């Protein structure tokens, strides 16, 4: 790269080609706006509402949305649904995001080592990835959650256990294709350590696909948390999550349908946002998609 090309590089990240292409992707922008609004609402919301999530009010049971100051109505104990929804959102988004971070870290480390070392170790690691992929994720998550006491932190770990494989596969393929490139050979000739070559020289070139996989993994982690909490093996009450708010909703479906509709809509909006963002990132970063 000559000096002219260096000078041509934008000085601010939002002037970069990737940022511009992302900004021209209407769905990605919509996703970004939706998830930002939802996150702000979940963070700020509980302070603005005059209700505590545990405040039981038996005179206000089963209030439909827009009853007095209960914007989203109440549940069978008269607890304000809006307050619970926002606090649940903090939990669900935080669990989804943390599970994504953990899976990306684990998947990246496994993928880099498998791709760079190759041989016997690489094969063993990648067959382990295949082994984990053979389990329908919810069977494994539920079995682990029943075996280990499901604290929020443990839920994050358990979700990550079933979601790290895709990142590992993507990183392994990238690293394997980069392993024989000149800059890696140059690094070896300079006497850099393998760890330095793997993580400082090769890994930055694989950041595009990892970023896309990360945004899609948040979406899947939020969904998986919702599934297991709905089934009663995820986040445990009284701590609310979008999934466990739906746990009892089925029996009140005829008398209080809003209890089922509202938390489910929140999950759908959050997951859709991350899927839209992932799609936009895929186009902006020129990553080959799993479905074009």
């Amino acid at each position, binding site marked *: 790269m000559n000096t002219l090309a260096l000078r041509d590089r934008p000085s601010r990240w939002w002037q970069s080609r990737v940022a511009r292409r992302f900004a021209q992707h209407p*769905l990605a922008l919509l996703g970004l706006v939706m998830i930002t609004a939802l996150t702000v609402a979940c963070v700020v919301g509980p302070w603005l509402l005059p209700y505590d999530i545990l405040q039981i009010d038996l005179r206000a049971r089963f209030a439909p949305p827009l009853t007095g100051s209960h914007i989203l109505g109440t549940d069978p104990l008269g607890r304000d649904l809006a307050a619970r929804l926002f606090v649940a959102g903090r939990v669900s988004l935080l669990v989804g995001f943390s599970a994504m971070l953990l899976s990306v870290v684990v998947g990246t480390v496994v993928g880099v080592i498998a791709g760079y070392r190759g041989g016997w170790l690489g094969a063993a690691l990648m*067959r*382990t990835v*295949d*082994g*984990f*992929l*053979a*389990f*329908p*994720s*919810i*069977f*494994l998550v*539920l*079995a*682990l959650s*029943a*075996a*280990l006491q499901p604290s929020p932190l443990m839920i994050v770990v358990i979700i990550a256990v079933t979601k790290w494989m895709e990142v590992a596969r993507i990183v392994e393929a990238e690293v394997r294709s980069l392993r024989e490139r000149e800059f890696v050979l140059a690094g070896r000739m300079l006497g850099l350590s393998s760890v330095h070559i793997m993580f400082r020289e090769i890994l930055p070139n694989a950041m595009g696909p990892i970023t896309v996989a990360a945004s899609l993994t948040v*979406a899947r982690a939020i*969904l998986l948390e*919702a*599934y297991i909490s*709905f*089934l009663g*093996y995820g986040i445990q009450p009284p701590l609310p999550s979008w*999934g466990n708010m*739906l746990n009892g*909703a*089925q029996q009140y*479906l*005829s008398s209080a*349908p809003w209890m*089922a*509709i509202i938390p*489910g809509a929140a*999950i*759908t909006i959050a*997951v*859709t946002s991350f*899927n*839209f963002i992932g*799609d936009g990132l895929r186009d902006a970063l020129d990553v080959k998609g799993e*479905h*074009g």
Partner: protein
Amino acid sequence: MRGFLLHRLFQSAVLLVIVSLIGFATLSLMPGGPMAQYGLDPGMTQDDLARLKQQLGLDRPLWVQYFDWAWRLLQGDWGKSFRDGSAVLSVIGRHIFATLLLMGTSTVIAIALGSWIGIRGATHRHSVFDYLATIGAMIALSIPTFWFGLIGIYFFTLKLGWLPAGNMYTIGDGSVLDYAHHLIMPSVVLSLVHVAIWSRYMRTATLDAISQDFVKTARAKGASERRVLMKHVVGNALLPMIALAGVQLPSILTGALVTETVFTWPGMGRLFLDSLSYSDYPVVMGLLIFSAIIVILGNLIADIVIAFVDPRIRLA
């Protein structure tokens, strides 16, 4: 072909070993492990427990226990249910039909509807239909299956009264029509995600096939556009979809578990949850291993079918 088959069989066997290792590790994490059922018995003294532990061989090194456990799995001895003492495999056998019926029906819906959407999207590229199908697929992938089921029950059972809210048949009826009536909502709910995935892949595969030389040749030879599409394009686009059906198996099983819960469908998913709530670990473990075996076998069969249909693969 023989070489391909042997290679593929060997791969599946290796995968089975890895899956059994993961399963055994999960089993070891269970509270109290295999001893849990005896620990609950108030008549048991510490001495009894220790003696039992020795009899069951649980004082041996873990790797010995693993080989013992894996060997019994291979022989079909999957242990006994804590709930009624019947063999785990026969308990699973009693529930497998309902799950296969649900998964099969929803797969047919997903393939039919997904293929149609995908092919139309590819032939009418950048049309309003194509655009809506793309967005629709992404939203469908984001909807929690159980929530979609609850919304379906709300409208089609509670508001309209058209469809039953759950179960596989009406007690005292059980005719084919009655089964079909109960099957509609769960299978449509379960198929939603797979219609989305299938349509996306089918669109890509069709676009790939359209640009191939043999399609140009068929057109040049004067075949009608419809014939080119149905015979040459779709035929070739469907081929990679067989592999997709195999790859999708774990997610169909996951969806089936959730759908069965919402619709009280008496399949393996419900059995799994019931067994979890009774701490019936032999059945839980059995289903965990069994579901992974279904996935491995499904992928093996998909690959063999493709190899039979497509000589490029088996000769490569």
